[in-house]
């Protein structure tokens, strides 16, 4: 179904959190204040790599208005954090490894005094060699950034004999792709409010994608019982993976406890750039061979990821890139090796798409080059080589069977955008593609790409889910999850699911998220998993919950149980004749039932895990979402400027529960990918950021937006599919880059291998079309 407001009917709902957002009433966690509040600031390293020889905070401590100063000596517990591998110092003891490393922090009565106090802290450094290139980090002579060396993680996938097979292939394409250090650029920078409570607890108001994980990590740093900490973590002004790791929480918490007063932290944009996570820059070398009929035979891939100074999710990201660098295709011989390397660059971590973006850009680039080499239509070439529904997953693991791939491929082939491409696939028609009214140096092209994207954390990683359903004292059906709302529309998706299940109205519903004191541990909002997990949780909770309240309604009224049903405001008696409703009468309100509740009679919990493949393949996924994207671009060959004109996204993710949210996620992901492709790069030189704010780090603005973006949702799932709707938070962002670069190829003849696309590559005298780039 083509998704838009008209086609969505009643499911097109105004967001539950919308009114507060459009009126400015909503208090984000960084908008909060408290009586007697102090302002916290962090002193970060002056050098990307240095030893700390001495650290003197006395002048800062003695300055008027400064209430607390902390260094590593003030960390009672583990002075490390990291969502997977805790190797990042909260406050550095002896060595700094990147420009965002924290050395001290202060809390003062005004932000100005806090900032000034930082300048009074004396740090003596012994500067060390800065490693900015992963290849240099791998040399024997390179200094070791961590005790175990400079390699964070390696991956390997091998079957068949790729090296031999490549020699026997009729055609081979070899290319090296590289991708930028993309920045999340959420509009709300990191921050929050940290309150020491009179009862000895600590309340942390700070955005995260997983309140419980933060609570655990903060407790570890403070050496406290987790239960003493309450983490309130939504609403969030954007995350995209960037706030999943702790950021200001260690400093806010430590300062609040040391000063005994509430402390507010809010990073400036520059500080956010300096300290925050980025997408892993990757170099991906691919050698791909096929036979004389265009059948893929062998694929040899080498991935080098620059993980920066600390681990965070560098290893899982590399696993994901490894899994996704072979695409949804059939191979006889496969040889992939990946390595994730520490450097003194900014820390790379989780980012929407999770390494899939880099891998899919390279893989799809290979497909286009191979198709062209053999003179086939690129989509037919993909059709010929696509995996079949019964085939194992990319890592030879068992995966859940759907027809998603087939469906997105068909849908794209039929899209008007691709039909237009078909009509002009002959290179001599390229000029014809250009608008007759535009000058001869303006060239147009159309390209397409395919993605198969895993959801969930993958085999071997604890991936808990769960939830709670209850009838609360106010007589509302209350659903509680430890998921977070960072803009994706989860709250409304939950609301629609509950209305579907209980036929009630939105007023009958209460949704509780983002507060560790009020929600059960049901896993994180990450890896496109929340929608599926919430749906599965509610399926499990629905029957016990219904049974309990309908039984109570029966006990209270004597009306036969089988005639009772939930509906607007309460329980209704429905009489059916031949399965059609003949009458509906009011019975009793939810509130009246709630008033009769004994203890937790109407509270139900469930716990389960995200579905995983039964095969022992670390990081291997079980559920995949499929997408195909077509893009039309216009290239000005005098300036090298590329403009995206038209885009078509089709996504096979099961029922679109919340169409407004669905479109929003695909459109937002798509434009974020546009930035990844054309303009975004957090440039570093010698370990320092050259792009420190939104004036030099260029995310797309409304002027860069394409005139048309069509989103088609393929909503079928296999009959009785037990997993329900699949997440779509990432899939909109993973396949646009290769579609754009394929379109650039058609428009200009240039094969792009490096993102963001360098303009000077595309500048050429008008009217000249050169063949280049393919090496047989």
């Amino acid at each position: 179904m083509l998704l838009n407001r008209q086609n969505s009917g009643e499911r097109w709902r105004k967001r539950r959190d919308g009114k507060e957002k459009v009126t400015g009433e909503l208090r984000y966690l960084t908008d909060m204040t408290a009586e007697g509040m102090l302002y916290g600031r962090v002193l970060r390293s002056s050098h990307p790599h240095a030893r700390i020889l001495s650290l003197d905070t006395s002048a800062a401590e003695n300055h008027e208005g400064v209430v607390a100063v902390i260094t590593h000596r003030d960390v009672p517990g583990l002075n490390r954090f990291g969502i997977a591998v805790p190797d990042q110092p909260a406050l550095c003891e002896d060595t700094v490894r990147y420009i965002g490393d924290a050395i001290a922090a202060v809390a003062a009565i005004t932000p100005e005094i806090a900032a000034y106090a930082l300048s009074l802290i004396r740090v003596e450094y012994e500067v060390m060699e800065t490693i900015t290139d992963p290849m240099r980090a791998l040399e024997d002579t390179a200094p070791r950034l961590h005790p175990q060396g400079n390699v964070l993680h390696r991956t390997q996938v091998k079957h068949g004999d790729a090296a031999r097979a490549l020699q026997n292939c009729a055609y081979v394409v070899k290319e090296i792709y590289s991708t930028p250090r993309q920045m999340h650029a959420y509009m709300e920078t990191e921050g929050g409010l940290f309150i020491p409570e009179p009862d000895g607890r600590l309340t942390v108001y700070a955005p995260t994608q997983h309140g419980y994980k933060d609570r655990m990590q903060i407790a570890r740093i403070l050496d406290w019982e987790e239960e003493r900490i309450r983490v309130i973590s939504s609403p969030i002004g954007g995350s995209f993976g960037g706030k999943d790791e702790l950021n200001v929480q260690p400093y806010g918490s430590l300062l609040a406890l040391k000063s005994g007063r509430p402390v507010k932290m809010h990073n400036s944009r520059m500080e956010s750039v300096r300290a925050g996570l980025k997408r892993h820059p990757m170099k991906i070398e691919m050698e791909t061979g096929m036979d004389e009929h265009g059948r893929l035979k062998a694929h040899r891939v080498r991935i080098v990821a620059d993980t920066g100074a600390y681990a965070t999710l560098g290893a899982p990201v590399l696993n994901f890139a490894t899994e996704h660098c072979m695409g949804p295709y059939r191979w006889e011989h496969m040889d992939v090796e990946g390595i994730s390397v520490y450097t003194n660059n900014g820390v790379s971590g989780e980012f929407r798409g999770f390494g899939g973006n880099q891998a899919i850009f390279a893989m799809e680039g290979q497909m286009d080059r191979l198709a062209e080499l053999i003179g086939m239509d690129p989509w037919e070439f993909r059709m010929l080589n696509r995996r079949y529904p019964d085939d194992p997953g990319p890592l030879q693991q068992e995966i859940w069977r759907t027809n998603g791939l087939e469906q997105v491929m068909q849908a794209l082939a039929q899209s008007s955008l691709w039909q237009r491409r078909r009509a002009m696939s002959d290179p001599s028609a390229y000029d014809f593609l250009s608008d007759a009214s535009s000058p001869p140096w303006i060239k147009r092209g159309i390209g397409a790409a395919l993605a198969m994207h895993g959801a969930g954390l993958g085999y071997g990683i604890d991936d808990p889910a769960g939830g709670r359903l209850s009838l609360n004292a106010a007589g509302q059906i209350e659903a509680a999850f430890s998921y977070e709302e960072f803009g994706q529309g989860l709250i409304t998706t939950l609301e629609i699911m509950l209305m579907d299940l209980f036929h009630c109205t939105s007023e009958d519903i209460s949704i509780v998220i983002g507060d560790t004191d009020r929600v059960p541990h049901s896993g994180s909002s990450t890896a496109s998993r929340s929608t599926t997990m919430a749906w599965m949780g509610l399926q499990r909770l629905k029957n016990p919950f219904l049974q309990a309240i309908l039984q109570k309604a029966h006990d209270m009224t004597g009306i036969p149980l089988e005639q009772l049903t939930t509906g607007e405001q309460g329980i209704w008696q429905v009489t059916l004749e031949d399965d059609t409703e003949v009458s509906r009468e009011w019975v009793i309100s939810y509130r009246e039932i709630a008033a009769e509740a004994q203890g937790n009679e109407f509270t139900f919990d469930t716990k389960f895990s995200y579905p995983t493949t039964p095969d022992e393949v670390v990081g291997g996924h079980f559920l995949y979402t499929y997408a195909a994207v077509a893009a039309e671009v216009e290239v000005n060959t005098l300036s090298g400027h590329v403009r995206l004109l038209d885009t078509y996204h089709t996504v096979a993710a099961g029922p679109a529960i919340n169409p407004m949210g669905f479109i929003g996620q695909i459109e937002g992901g798509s434009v974020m990918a546009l930035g990844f492709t054309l303009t975004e790069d957090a440039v570093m030189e010698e370990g320092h950021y050259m792009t420190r704010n939104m004036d030099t780090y260029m995310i797309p603005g409304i002027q860069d937006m394409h005139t048309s973006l069509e989103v088609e949702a393929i909503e079928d799932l296999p009959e009785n599919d037990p997993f329900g709707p699949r997440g779509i938070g990432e899939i909109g962002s993973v396949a646009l880059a290769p579609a754009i670069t394929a379109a650039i190829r058609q428009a200009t003849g240039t094969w792009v291998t490096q993102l963001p696309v360098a303009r000077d590559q595309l500048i050429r005298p008008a009217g000249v079309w050169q063949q280049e780039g393919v090496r047989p």
Partner: protein
Amino acid sequence: MTKTTGIQWQAVVNGKAREIEVPPSRRLLDILREDLDLTGTKISCEIGRCGACMVLIDGEPMNSCLMMAYQCAGSEITTIEGLHGETAEELHPIQEAFLEEGGFQCGYCTPGMIISTKALLDRIPQPGEQEIKEGLCGNLCRCTGYGGIMRAVESAADKCAYRSLPSPVVGP
């Protein structure tokens, strides 16, 4: 540090006369968010690039992160909190349109977007696509990809024309 002497800063903020003592170089953004507790105006880049801090000063859209107290003293300032429909409880048609069309996700850019849209529609009641893009080119959004925002602005233009509301409606 020596204490800077303040000025008596006066302005009409969302229809209400306000007077406070602040240093002349205090940013309007901080006056609004911290001194007047109007946190609907957001803070993001602080260099005039993202538009999260957009407010109307005498009807013109301005980045409050670049505006100092002395520059806007005596003016009429409208923030997102001052925008509403015919009565204070009602939404402005622009807000209504953002809600209906999915013109926001995390909502952090939204107050600025809505303020810029207001300024645009006051100037050009029925803007074309290019005019909308020009009107909103000073506002960045990382979530929506601008699709929902485009639809919202188009629908807002229709709503405003249809209701032919006197603009701007500034509340008490």
